[in-house]
């Protein structure tokens, strides 16, 4: 699988509500980060919209399935449009991939549009045609992260 195909695959899992399969794309030591501030460097002493390790990410998916998750039942319908995919660096163990995300979200008579610069760190798994990737780190910088935002109950 090529890098861009992998990112489309990831987006498709989110847009078709296959959150558990999406979670499987992440390595055990993965981090998923949606910073609060522009060019934020530190996730521990500055707040984040989401700052999850693999454990928290799994719990986030579990919450989405809970029958009394009021902001998530039903889940918003989304379209993740991934573009401008570029390889930033490539080493034996990991690749850094930049992309842009445009996302349309609809839930409870509210439609919202999101834009973000995204960076993935991907690790190869398998070889040849069966080869794919696992996500070791995903960072989503929303263009309006510092704005006054209604609650966020989707995954980017």
């Amino acid at each position: 699988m090529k890098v861009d195909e992998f990112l489309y695959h990831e987006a498709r899992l989110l847009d078709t509500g296959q959150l558990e399969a999406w979670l499987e794309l992440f390595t055990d030591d993965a981090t998923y980060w949606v910073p609060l501030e522009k060019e934020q460097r530190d996730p521990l002493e500055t707040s984040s919209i989401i700052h999850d390790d693999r454990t928290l990410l799994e719990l986030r998916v579990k919450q989405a399935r809970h029958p009394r998750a009021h902001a998530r039942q039903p889940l918003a319908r989304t379209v993740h449009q991934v573009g401008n995919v570029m390889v930033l660096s490539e080493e034996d163990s990991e690749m850094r991939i930049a992309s842009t995300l445009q996302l349309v979200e609809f839930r409870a008579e509210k439609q919202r549009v999101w834009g973000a610069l995204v960076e993935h760190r991907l690790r190869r798994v398998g070889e040849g045609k069966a080869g794919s990737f696992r996500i070791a780190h995903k960072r989503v910088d929303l263009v309006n992260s510092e704005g006054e935002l209604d609650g966020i109950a989707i995954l980017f």
Partner: protein
Amino acid sequence: MLVQPDRVHRSVYADPAIFDLEMERVFGRAWLVLGHESQVRAPGDYFTTRMGREPVIVVRREDKEVGVLINRCAHRGSMVCAEGRGHAERFVCPYHGWSYDRGGVLQAVPFASGYDKGKLPAGLKAVPRVKTYRGFIFASLSAQGEDLETFLGHARASFDDFVDRAPGGELEVAGGVFKHAYNGNWKLMLENHLDGAHPAWVHASSVAVARAAPEPGKPGEEHYYDIAVRQMRQNGAPDAVWEAIGMWTTPHGHGYMGDYHSDDRLVAGMGSPVFEEYRKILAQKCGQKEADRILRVTLWNTIIYPNCSFMSQFRQLRIIHPIAVDRSVVHAYSFRMKNAPAQMFRDTVAFANVVNGTGSWVLTDDLEVYERLQRGLSSGAVDWVYVGRGHGRDVEEPNGVRRGATGTSEIFMRAQFAAWLRYLSQ
């Protein structure tokens, strides 16, 4: 009567004409919390915010006092200061270049020969009353009214707790500001933060996942989110725990919750070496006896009516900005205790992310409920909202303080509406 002892009319949440009256009579008169002195340390430091619907600039003036100016050029009305924070020698209007000093006094006007000099306005309109209490900045749009200490009354104890817990009393706003919004009335947030009957329902999903989270780590093996997992689990405490907590109100509509989270449950009791270090630093700064007294205070959420909610133990403070009858914005701040171990601030940040953040597991369900409330309350088919839990059983304490018969009493809502009615009737 819109406000009765155990019920209120739905129009107080849904009628735009009542909202306009609230902006004039409640937000136009009460002391409002604007922020903290650490946001404006040096002359020229400023930040913008709102007082009700008025855009304002909070600035450290040349004379070292904190000033609050209406962010509106005296000429044609443009906001002179873009939203945000920073440092300024002067505030210069982007439209025609009128400039104002740090006290808001008009300094220079281009094409000045076109005016009769005596007829130029003096400057930016200053908010008439500004005071600080232990570092927190308050202002009132009304020139007359009670002094700040009377207004705060016994709720001062919550600010005292906030500051006393910081070794040497040194606190600063840090770690970023969450700004969240919802399509609902401003009162809905203040009514939610002292409601001990809602977590089991609203937060059922985050309680469930927190119970499935890994056990908080032993010293040296902590997860960065342990503190937040503990809080989410605590939201699932048995009914008896909620009934037993303390719930107090003041005559100005403030309220606070106590005897709920002791440090033993959340930080100290975990045998945390970080907390032990903090305890030592606190005792070095103020003496062992005073340190022990400070740490025995178990206050939880405090509401300062009509625009602020804070958690002194977790150093979280939220300010609500009413935008319209059915739209509100909340800015949520974290505070760092300057002399405390760094890990304590990391705990504050993790707590903010998971509990109070825009994408958090807890707040998102509150916001969903506020929006459902607003949609339900906009229906004219049913008139009344019931606030009668515990009504008739409130306990009188000295200085106008009242205590709910149980921790889940809706006394805090009745107190808020009593204050509301007084503001509206004046």
